C-alpha cells in the first residue's frame, strides 16, 4: 500500500535526483546528508500515488512537462530561514545604509536579498528600514530573489505558520506587522509591497538589472561547490557597485574565492566591493 510502504531508493535513483538538483540550482547534497532526499520527497511520492523513489525517478524520465521536476527540486531545496536571522548583522546593514545615504543624499539605495527563500529576510529588512524612517532614514528599494517558484509564491503571500512567525520575530513586531488568520500569520500587504520578488537562479542567471548598494547572499554559498561559489561571487560582484557591500552567512567567506571583495573595516562581517586592479587599501578608505 503506497500510504505505508517504505520510500527506499536505489543508489542510481538517489544519484539521479541529486544530479537534477545540482543541474537546476547548483545545490549539492553531501553524501552524509543523502537521507534528506528520501525525507524531503516522501510527501511528493505519496501525493503522486507512487511507492518508491525509483518510481518517482521513472515518472521523471517519462514526464514530458517540467512540472514534476520543478516540484522535485522545490521539495529538495533547503529553505531554512527565519526572521531577523543574525539580528546584529541586519542592524549593521541598517547602519551601513544610513552612512551610504549620508554620502549620496537624494539617491534611493538598492538592496538585493539573493536566495530569499520564503521571504523572512527581505521582510525583516523592510520592517527594520520602515522602523528607521522615524529617525530620518529613507527606506531602500528591496529586490528579493530565489530559485524556487514555490518559495517565492509563499513569500509573495506573506503567510507564515505559527512556528515560522515565532522564529526570530519579537512579539511587538509580530503584532505590528502581522494578523492571525486560520492558524497562520499574514503580513500586512503594505509590508509585502515594500519588497519586489523575482525568480532568479544564482547558479545560472546573470545579476538582476542595475547596480546594488548592498547585496545579501546569506547561507546560500555553503550548498555550492567551490567552483560554483567562485562563479556566483563573480555574479554578485557584477551586481554590487564599487564601494558597495556584500553580506554572507556567518560561516561563509570570500577568502580564497574572489578578489572582488575585501572585509569591510567599518562594518564587521560585511565585505566591500573593490576593483581587483585597485590596491585594496586605497579602496577601503572609500567607506571610512
Amino acid at each position: 500500500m503506497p500510504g505505508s510502504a517504505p520510500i527506499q531508493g536505489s543508489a542510481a535513483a538517489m544519484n539521479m535526483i541529486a544530479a537534477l538538483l545540482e543541474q537546476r540550482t547548483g545545490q549539492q547534497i553531501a553524501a552524509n546528508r543523502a537521507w534528506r532526499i528520501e525525507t524531503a520527497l516522501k510527501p511528493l511520492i505519496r501525493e503522486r500515488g507512487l511507492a518508491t523513489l525509483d518510481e518517482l525517478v521513472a515518472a521523471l524520465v517519462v514526464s514530458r512537462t517540467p512540472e514534476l521536476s520543478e516540484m522535485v527540486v522545490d521539495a529538495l531545496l533547503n529553505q531554512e530561514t527565519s526572521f531577523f536571522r543574525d539580528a546584529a548583522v541586519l542592524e549593521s546593514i541598517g547602519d551601513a545604509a544610513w552612512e551610504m545615504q549620508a554620502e549620496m543624499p537624494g539617491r534611493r539605495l538598492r538592496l538585493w536579498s539573493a536566495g530569499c527563500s520564503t521571504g523572512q529576510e527581505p521582510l525583516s529588512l523592510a520592517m527594520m528600514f520602515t522602523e528607521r524612517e522615524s529617525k530620518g532614514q529613507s527606506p531602500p528599494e528591496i529586490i528579493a530573489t530565489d530559485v524556487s517558484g514555490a518559495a517565492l509564491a509563499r513569500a509573495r503571500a506573506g503567510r507564515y505558520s505559527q512556528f515560522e512567525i515565532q522564529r526570530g520575530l519579537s512579539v511587538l513586531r509580530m503584532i505590528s506587522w502581522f494578523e492571525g488568520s486560520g492558524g497562520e500569520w499574514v503580513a500586512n500587504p503594505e509590508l509585502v509591497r515594500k519588497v519586489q520578488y523575482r525568480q532568479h537562479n544564482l547558479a545560472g542567471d546573470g545579476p538582476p538589472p542595475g547596480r546594488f548598494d548592498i547585496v545579501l547572499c546569506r547561507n546560500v554559498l555553503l550548498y555550492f561547490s567551490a567552483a560554483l561559489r567562485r562563479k556566483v561571487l563573480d555574479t554578485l560582484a557584477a551586481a554590487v557597485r564599487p564601494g558597495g557591500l556584500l553580506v554572507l552567512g556567518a560561516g561563509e567567506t570570500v577568502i580564497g574565492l574572489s578578489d572582488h571583495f575585501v572585509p569591510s573595516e567599518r562594518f564587521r562581517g560585511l565585505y566591500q566591493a573593490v576593483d581587483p586592479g585597485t590596491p585594496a587599501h586605497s579602496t577601503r578608505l572609500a567607506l571610512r
Partner: protein
Amino acid sequence: MKTCLVVDDSKVIRKVARHILETLDFQVREAGDGREALDSCLATPPDVILLDWNMPVMSGMDFLRALKDSGLPQRPKVVFCTTENGMAYIRAAIEAGADEYVMKPFDRETLESKLQIVGVA
C-alpha cells in the same frame, strides 16, 4: 548559568520546557501555579519566567500583576507561554508588562529565539 522559572499547571509542559531549557544551559525551577511562582520569585528571583496563562489558584495574568506590585528591585524577564493565541490576549499580556510571548505548541527553536530576544540566551 541563567535561571528560568517554568510556571505551568501541566506537568508534561513543564517537563518538555525543562528538557529544552536544560539543553540551552538554563538552571530550571518549576511552579504549578501563579501563587507558587510568586513565592519562588520573592525567595530567589530567576532571570526569566516562562509563564502559562490559565492556571488554578492564581492565573498567569494575576501573577504578572502581583509580580509588578511586589517591589522586586530587578524584575525577571517574563515570557508568556500559552495556548491563548488571539491578538487580544497577546496585546493584553504586553500591556500588563510581559516581555515576550510564546504561542503553544512550541519547539526548541521558538523558545531559544524568544529567550534571545529578551536577552537571556
